[in-house]
C-alpha cells in the first residue's frame, strides 16, 4: 500500500536533486538585473567617476602616468564599489528568496545549496572578469589615458592568478556575510540579531584590546606581511566557509516570517 | 438560485425534476453533465453528482455509457405522481389541520378553494 502511495505521489514529478538545486539558482537569476545588471552598472558609473577624478588630479598634480600618480590611484576603493550593494543582495537572497522558494515547495536544503551554488558561480564569474580587467588595464597602460581603477588596493600586484583567487574569496565572503546575517534573522528573529551584533562587537573589541595590552601589534603586522596577498585571502576562506556552513545549519530549522 | 439551509444536492435534484415536469428537458434527451451543473450553479462537482445520482437511483435518469445521463421514458409521469403525493402531505394536510383548528369543515374548505379559483380566473 505504501508502494502505491509513493508511486502516485512520485509520478507527480520526479525531479532529481541536481535539477531541483539548479532550479533554485534559476529562481534567483530570473531577474538578471539583481546579480548582473546593477553591479556592472555600478562598476561602469564608478569607472566614469574615476576617469573624471583622474583627469582633475592629473591637471592639478602635473601629469598622470607618473609613478606617484599611479601609486596614488591605488588607494581608490572604486573597484569595490558594487560590493556594498552585493552585501544587500546576499541579505535579500535569503530574506526574500527563502519565503518564496518555500512557497514553491522547495526544501530548505535544496534552497540553500542552490543559493550557495549561485554565490560560488557569480563569485567565480566576477573574479574572472575583474582579474581580466586588471590585466587589460595594465596592458593598455590605464586604458590609454593613464587611468587606473582595477589596479587598486591589493589587485594587480601579484599577478593574474592571485587577483583571480583573492577576488573570488572576497566576493564569496561578501555574499555569505549578507546571507548569514539574513539567515540568523530568519531563524532567531530580533533576539538573534541582538546576540549576533553584540557578540561580534565584543569579539572585535576583545581582540583589539588583547593585542594592544600584550603590545602585539608589531608581531601581528609582521605575521600579515609574511602571509602575502594570497595567504591572507586563503585565511579569509575560513570565515567564508564558516558563514556558509553555519548558514546552512541555521536555515535547516528556520521558518519563513509571516 | 441555490438557497441556504437545504442540502444543495436535494436542490439540484429538484431543479432537474422541475425541468422534466415543465418539459424543458424531454424524455430520452441528455441532461447536462455533473461538471456543467457544478460550474453553472457554482457548487462543488461532488455535490452536483450526488443530486444527479439521486435521480439515477429513483430511475428518473439513466446512464448511457460514454455519452452521459438521459431522462428515462415515463420519468415525467412518475415525477407528477410523486409530486402529487408530496403536495397532499405538505399542503393539503396542514391546510386541513389549520382549518380544523379554526372550526372550518373540509366541505367549507373545498367551497373556499372553488371561490378563490373563480376569483383568480375572473380577475
Amino acid at each position, binding site marked *: 500500500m505504501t508502494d502505491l502511495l509513493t508511486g502516485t505521489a512520485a509520478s507527480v514529478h520526479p525531479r532529481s536533486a541536481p535539477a531541483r538545486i539548479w532550479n533554485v539558482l534559476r529562481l534567483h537569476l530570473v531577474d538578471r538585473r539583481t546579480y548582473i545588471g546593477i553591479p556592472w552598472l555600478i562598476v561602469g558609473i564608478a569607472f566614469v567617476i574615476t576617469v573624471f577624478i583622474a583627469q582633475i588630479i592629473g591637471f592639478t598634480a602635473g601629469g598622470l602616468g607618473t609613478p606617484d600618480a599611479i601609486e596614488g590611484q591605488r588607494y581608490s576603493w572604486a573597484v569595490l564599489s558594487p560590493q556594498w550593494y552585493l552585501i544587500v543582495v546576499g541579505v535579500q537572497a535569503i530574506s526574500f528568496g527563502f519565503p518564496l522558494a518555500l*512557497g514553491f*515547495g522547495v526544501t530548505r536544503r535544496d534552497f540553500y545549496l542552490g543559493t550557495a551554488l549561485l554565490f560560488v558561480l557569480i563569485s567565480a564569474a566576477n573574479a574572472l572578469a575583474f582579474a581580466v580587467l586588471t590585466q587589460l588595464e595594465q596592458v593598455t597602460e590605464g586604458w590609454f589615458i593613464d587611468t587606473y581603477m582595477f589596479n587598486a588596493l591589493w589587485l594587480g600586484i601579484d599577478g593574474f592568478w592571485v587577483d583571480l583567487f583573492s577576488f573570488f574569496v572576497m566576493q564569496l565572503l561578501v555574499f555569505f556575510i549578507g546571507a548569514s546575517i539574513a539567515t540568523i534573522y530568519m531563524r532567531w528573529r530580533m533576539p538573534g540579531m541582538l546576540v549576533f551584533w553584540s557578540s561580534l562587537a565584543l569579539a572585535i573589541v576583545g581582540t583589539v584590546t588583547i593585542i594592544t595590552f600584550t603590545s602585539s601589534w608589531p608581531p601581528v603586522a609582521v605575521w600579515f606581511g609574511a602571509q602575502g596577498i594570497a595567504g591572507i585571502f586563503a585565511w579569509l576562506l575560513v570565515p567564508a566557509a564558516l558563514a556558509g556552513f553555519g548558514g546552512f545549519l541555521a536555515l535547516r530549522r528556520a521558518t519563513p516570517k509571516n | 438560485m441555490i438557497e*441556504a*439551509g437545504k442540502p444543495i444536492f436535494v436542490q439540484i435534484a429538484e431543479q432537474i425534476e422541475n425541468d422534466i415536469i415543465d418539459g424543458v428537458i424531454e424524455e430520452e434527451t441528455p441532461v447536462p453533465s455533473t461538471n456543467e451543473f457544478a460550474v453553472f450553479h*457554482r457548487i462543488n*462537482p461532488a455535490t452536483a453528482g450526488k443530486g444527479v445520482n439521486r435521480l439515477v437511483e429513483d430511475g428518473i435518469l439513466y446512464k448511457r455509457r460514454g455519452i452521459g445521463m438521459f431522462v428515462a421514458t415515463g420519468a415525467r409521469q412518475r415525477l407528477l405522481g410523486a409530486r402529487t403525493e408530496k403536495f397532499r402531505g405538505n399542503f393539503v394536510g396542514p391546510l386541513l389541520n389549520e382549518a380544523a383548528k379554526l372550526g372550518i369543515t373540509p366541505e367549507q374548505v373545498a367551497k373556499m378553494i372553488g371561490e378563490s379559483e373563480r376569483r383568480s380566473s375572473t380577475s
Partner: protein
Amino acid sequence: MTDTAVRVTGLTKKFGAFTAIDDVSFTVERNKIYGLLGRNGAGKTTLMQLLTGQQFATSGTLEVFGASPVENARVLQSLCFIKESQKYPDSFRPEHVFANAPWFFAHWDAAFAARLVDDFRLPLNRPIKKLSRGQLSAVGVIIGLASRAPLTFFDEPYLGLDAVARQIFYDRLLEDYAEHPRTIILSTHLIDEVSNLLEHVLVIDEGRILMDQDAEQLRGTASTVVGKKTDVDAFVAGRDIISRDGIGGLASVTVAGLGETERTAARAAGLELSPVSLQQLIVQRTTSTTSESMTTTDAWSARS
C-alpha cells in the same frame, strides 16, 4: 489508504507558552475541496504551515502523501501553498514570478495562467512593490490555480480582491477543478461566499478541530426550531444543541441532525423551522461557551 492526502494525529504546535495547534487529528481525502474555516487567530495559517513543512511540529505526527512533508522534496513537489502574506523579491515583477513557476510545478499550465492574468487584469511588468493589495493577491491566486498541484493550499487568498475578482477566482477554481480534480484546502472567513464550493469542512477554533464534516451533511441538517419554550424544550431534549436563545416564553434553539421525519414531527408539534446557513452554524459553534451561557441566562431573566 491511497485516497488519503493528509493524515494528522495528535498534532501540537506551541510558540513558547502559547499553544497554536492543540492535539489535532484529522485526515484529508484526495481530490476534494476542503474548507478550513475559523476565526482570525484560530490556527488556520499555522496548521497550513505545518502541513507544508514550513513550521516544525512540537509533537504529534503529520503525513502528506504518506510521509512527513518536512524537508521532503518528493512530498513538497506536489504541494502549492498560497498565503496572504507571501513575500517576493523587491525587484520582481509578476512576469518573473510566472516565469519561475514551471520549474517548480510540474503541472503548470502557462496558457491557463495567461488567461487568468487577463481575467484579473494584472499588469505583468509592474514591480511587485507597486501592485495594489488586490493585484498582489491575484498573483498568488494565479500561481495557485495554474500550478495544478496535487495538494493546493489557499490561505485567505483574496485580501484586497473586490467582489468581481473573488467571483472570478471561485468560478475559475471550480471550472478547473472539475476538469483537473485535485485536493484543495481553502482557508477563509468569508464562509458564505465559498460554502457551496466545499465538499468537506474543517472548523478550527483556538487550535482545536471543532467540526470535521461533510459540507452537505452540515448544510440542511441544522435547523433553528422556534416556538413556545415548553414545546421547543420538549422537542430538542436529547438532541445536539448548537445554540439557544429566547425571549419571553419563546425559545429559539439551533439543533443539528434533523431528518425529514423529525422535521415533519416538529411542524406537527406547531414549531417553526428555519434553515441555518453554514456561516451561521459556524459562527454559533465558534462563539465561546461563555456567550452561550449568557444567552441562556438572558432567556432565564427574560422569563422571570
